[in-house]
């Protein structure tokens, strides 16, 4: 492995897998939330208390980023699947786009969420 010079695309390939695994485990939260909503007010209040706590917010924020990054990184893979974007500068541009786009979308979603959720 030492013979490889680490490149951005290589690192982001690992991040794509890592975010995928995180999203996989995180579906447990989605299930918990939906089952609680179907169970009744007490169960739903537990979920809301957890999601509203500092740790809960950090987890959901991380989950938002993992989802946005994985989606954009996946779109990058679609571009490659279709046979485009293989030149060195195109590869780099797509990868930077996924990296920066993922962060921007995550922050944007949370700004909107606070603007809407805070008003209720």
């Amino acid at each position: 492995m030492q013979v490889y010079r680490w490149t951005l695309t290589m690192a982001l390939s690992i991040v794509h897998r890592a975010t995928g695994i995180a999203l996989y485990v995180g579906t447990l939260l989605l299930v918990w939330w939906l089952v609680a909503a179907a169970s009744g007010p007490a169960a739903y209040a537990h979920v809301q208390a957890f999601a509203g706590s500092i740790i809960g917010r950090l987890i959901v924020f991380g989950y938002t980023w993992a989802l946005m990054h994985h989606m954009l990184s996946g779109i990058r893979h679609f571009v490659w699947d279709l046979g485009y974007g293989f030149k060195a500068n195109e590869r780099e541009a797509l990868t930077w786009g996924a990296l920066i786009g993922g962060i921007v979308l995550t922050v944007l979603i949370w700004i909107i969420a606070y603007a809407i959720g805070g008003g209720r």
Partner: protein
Amino acid sequence: MSATDTPKRSMRTPLGRVRNLGAAHSGTSDFWRQRITGVAMTLLMIPVLVIIMMLLGRNQVGAAQILSSIPVAVILLLFIFASAWHMKIGMQVVIEDYVHNEKLKLVSIMLNNFFSVAVALASTYAILKLSSGV
């Protein structure tokens, strides 16, 4: 069961000889489904985010009312179905890449299937229960 064992004069077609080989024993169907479900989730992302925004800050009564509406329920069901399938395939690829012990690999793939189906079924049941209002 390697392809090189096949005698020179064989009734088997070239396709028949390579079928079921490879780590997944299932050819390219998983590759294709991985992409279908990925496209589906990308298209569903904005409606799903809108639904989540609608639910923020509401109590169970308010949330249940929104979740029981037909378009909301259908969008979430589609998203959950695509997610469960996508993550089952994705995790299987990871397992096949890193788990080299054959028995452990088979057990891991089996548990992956159980987990993905359980996630899909529990979420689906919850949404249908909310939709039927019982």
